[in-house]
């Protein structure tokens, strides 16, 4: 078990190295000259050359890559050409908001998709199955920006159930610790601020979750159906187990093994799809930051964002492996 984890960590390091290399090469081939951006719009050729030297862009590619790696190892993502601040500082400002949004969306995703998938499978071919599949289809078919705008228009602007935009209402503030306002409000013991932050989180989280719900519900439905057809499920019924016990303890527990792979990967996908949701609901976050960086031709910031999202995928994958280990006793022994 320990060997498994160590091996996975080693693999993770390898993947991260590959990712850093790809991102570095990508930065070399995209159009745009970072030295010119850094020097400013009206810089002379001399000033551009100075900037190039200052940024080390005149050195051989391999040397640049070596420096790139050593900086990364020290947690240095470089300086934003646009804000002139360390990119790590910029990310520290925006990343927690996105992580908060992604975690909330994942919660919504699981709370909706798992029951839908289970009901669909247990009542396969009946009215409940049809209804669940219609809901799923709707979530999959509706574009995120449309859903976001409609929710915002109806629930926030018209009926004013939820706030329109932002992370906190005007005049509400929480001491910053993690950067996730809901968590910070809880840590400060401020329940008023917590419910305010939560209210701001609901619509963006639902919007972000919608397309992911469809995937989880469909996957779970099909894996559940094949699990429920197996002998041990019939045998569980023959023991006199209630249908609920049969479906949850024997069916769902087995169906979760394959489904957890997809759920884990979704953490990474969600982080990279925050762009639209964050701009609709006026939330600062990595999505909004990425859009800005691209528009401003801020190459180092773009590279940093790609790297961060890549790291999120790698971490999500590692979590999936751990969850698998916990869910599937056969893996534990085999130490695959």
């Amino acid at each position, binding site marked *: 078990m320990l060997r498994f984890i160590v091996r996975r960590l080693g693999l993770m390091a390898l993947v991260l190295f590959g990712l850093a290399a790809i991102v570095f090469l990508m930065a070399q081939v995209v159009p745009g000259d970072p030295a010119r951006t850094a020097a400013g719009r009206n810089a002379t050729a001399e000033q551009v050359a100075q900037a190039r030297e200052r940024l080390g862009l005149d050195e051989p590619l391999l040397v640049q890559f070596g420096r790139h790696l050593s900086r990364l190892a020290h947690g240095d993502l470089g300086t934003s050409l646009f804000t002139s601040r360390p990119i790590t500082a910029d990310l520290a400002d925006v990343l927690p908001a996105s992580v908060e949004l992604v975690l909330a969306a994942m919660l919504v995703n699981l709370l909706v998709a798992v029951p839908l998938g289970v009901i669909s499978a247990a009542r396969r071919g009946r009215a409940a199955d049809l209804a669940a599949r219609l809901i799923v289809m709707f979530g999959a078919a509706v574009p995120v920006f449309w859903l976001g705008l409609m929710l915002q228009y109806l629930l926030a602007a018209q009926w004013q159930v939820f706030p329109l935009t932002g992370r906190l209402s005007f005049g509400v503030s929480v001491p910053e610790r993690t950067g996730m306002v809901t968590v910070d409000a809880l840590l400060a013991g401020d329940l008023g601020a917590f419910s305010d932050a939560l209210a701001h989180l609901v619509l963006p989280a639902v919007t972000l979750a919608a397309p992911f719900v469809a995937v989880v519900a469909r996957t779970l439905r099909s894996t559940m159906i094949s699990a429920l057809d*197996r*002998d*041990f499920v*019939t*045998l*569980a*019924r*023959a*023991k*006199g*187990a*209630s*249908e609920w*016990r049969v479906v949850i*303890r*024997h069916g769902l*527990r*087995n169906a979760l*093994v394959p489904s957890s792979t997809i759920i884990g990967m979704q953490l990474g996908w969600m982080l990279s799809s925050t762009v639209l949701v964050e701009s609709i609901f006026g939330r600062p976050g990595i999505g909004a930051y990425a859009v800005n960086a691209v528009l401003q031709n801020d190459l180092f910031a773009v590279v940093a964002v790609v790297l961060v999202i890549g790291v999120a995928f790698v971490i999500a994958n590692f979590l999936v492996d751990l969850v698998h280990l916990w*869910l*599937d*006793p*056969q893996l534990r*022994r085999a130490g695959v």
Partner: protein
Amino acid sequence: MTELLTVRDLRVDFDTPSGPVRVIDGLDLTVAPGERVALVGESGSGKSVTAQAILGLLPTARVTGSVRLDGQELVGASRRILRQVRGNRIGLVFQDPLSSLNPVMTIGRQVMEPLLIRGVRRAEARRRAIDLLARLGVRDAARRFDDYPHQFSGGMRQRVVIAIAVIAEPDLLIADEPTTALDVRIQAQVLSLLDEIAAERRMAVLLITHDLGIVAGFAQRVVVMYAGREVEQGPVDEIFGRARHPYTRGLLAAVPRIDERHQGRLPTIGGQVPTPAQRPDGCAFHPRCSSTVDACRSEVPLLLPRAAAHRVACHVATRHAEQVTEV
């Protein structure tokens, strides 16, 4: 003698895209308390469906007729009544011990489950489960309690499945091909274990098998099925000594015997069991039968008594008997 299990005119139909198909066609069966009955037939003759129909485990099938356990009707019974019967009064053992066990649940929890469902306290359930596993020959039962099915060998898994079936002390054990998936040496062990545990607990056993070879030493009565119908039934000595139905005779001839020297290959019955959708008219066995008369092709033979408790559904056997009586 009051019967424990009485099956009368059991019919099971499955809906298929090409219309309903009758898989079991009018089965009659009784099991007395403590009695051992073997239900015999080739693959595809409807034996396993019978077992699941008795317990109401065929949600997609249409089951008609009557299944009574101590007078309690089970066909069409409420889910609540069925749940009280399953595990508690009737235990079930499947053919393949690997697919019968939930791969992500410890064997201990699976053995305890029938007790926990009925509100037995966990500590008590654990104690009983360990005792039973030890009794069934699982070495180090207490230590292996928290192991998973894949850590057990095939024979050990089948002992676990038997433990699950008998832990709630049912009156009837339905064992559906309990030894088929095991290798020969383990088969004998598991069978004698079933024999002992049934005797100790005075359980009746309905042994479902295609292998007449294991029936002789185990069962008191034999019911032979062919293509969803019962073709012959009688005490084990009658069936082995004076089988009347050509199908039963064919099955008996195909059992290898240690006390007879065979020249060349074992005799076989040509052809195979028809699928329920293609069951021939008249006697379902007639295309494979060596002694047919006209009636075989058009009329389904009735199950008629031949001797005390020995019944046969065969036109030829019946006609032959009439001639004997006339003489």
